[in-house]
């Protein structure tokens, strides 16, 4: 069966109906394992126990940017192939991406106060992530403002692709500018700079949060398909009664 066949909304609903319970169970198990590893992880020699904030801050940062990349891929699906499931994927991802970006900002500030002596600095990394959060809000407002879903999808897709320029800025801001935020320490040339006793729980939590994202995204996509079907039914009925 060609891959495009799986992008049929009815087939998508049938597949996700079977997949979601397993994905939910995998998410719960991954979090249980991750939390046990956090409990066992030693304090950092410089940060002390504050390093535990990194176990939620780093996955949140990863998902905040990942969701925008996913929305950008979906935006191409909307503009190039005009596929309705691409619209649904983009719309469902926006609030989830916004929530994880907010989590990244809040946990980062709470880590920054004891470690840097301030909740916030206007350095390139922090500012570009704040811009990402504001762009998420902009896309969500667009989806809510334009009533016709196909029209809203096109406008949101253009804004998403324009906003995608911020993703490499976020990633490389710590290299391009002199920032208070540290450089890459998990994914970098020459291997991770983090000791294995802290890296393991961090990687497990990244997996757990990613599974959570996928679970929430699929569930939100199912809701959006249902909302569109409901809208179509009501419009068809209104046309018939007119």
């Amino acid at each position, binding site marked *: 069966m060609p891959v495009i066949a799986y992008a049929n909304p009815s087939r998508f609903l049938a597949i996700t109906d079977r997949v979601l319970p397993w994905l939910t169970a995998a998410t719960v198990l991954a979090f249980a394992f991750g939390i046990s590893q956090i409990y066992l992880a030693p304090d950092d020699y410089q940060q002390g126990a504050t390093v535990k904030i990194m176990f939620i801050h780093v996955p949140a940062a990863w998902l905040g940017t990942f969701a925008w990349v996913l929305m950008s891929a979906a935006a191409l699906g909307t503009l190039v192939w005009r596929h309705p499931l691409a619209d649904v994927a983009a719309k469902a991802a926006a609030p989830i991406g916004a929530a994880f970006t907010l989590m990244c900002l809040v946990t980062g500030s709470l880590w920054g106060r004891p470690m840097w002596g301030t909740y916030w600095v206007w350095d390139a990394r922090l500012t570009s992530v704040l811009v990402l959060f504001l762009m998420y809000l902009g896309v969500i407002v667009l989806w809510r403002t334009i009533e016709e879903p196909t029209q809203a999808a096109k406008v949101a897709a253009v804004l998403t692709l324009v906003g995608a320029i911020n993703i490499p800025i976020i990633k490389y801001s710590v290299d391009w500018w002199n920032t208070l935020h540290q450089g890459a320490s998990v994914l970098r040339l020459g291997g991770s700079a983090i000791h294995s006793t802290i890296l393991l729980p961090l990687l497990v939590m990244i997996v757990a949060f990613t599974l959570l994202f996928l679970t929430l995204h699929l*569930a939100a996509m199912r809701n959006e398909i249902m909302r569109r079907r409901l809208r179509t039914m009501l419009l068809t009925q209104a046309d018939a009664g007119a």
Partner: protein
Amino acid sequence: MTMDLGPHAAFIVTAYAAAVAIVAGLVLWVVLDRRHLTRTLEDVEAQGITRRSRRAGGTS
């Protein structure tokens, strides 16, 4: 067995509390939205309004 979070315990606990609140908010949003949509769909179908594919004998 309790965990010693050191002098910055308040920041660590607040960060985790914020993360839990945000995740709980997301889960609630998805679940309540689903519940609302299901109820509305049932109400609409009770009024005799159905999808075109269902009227035509389709399965989707």
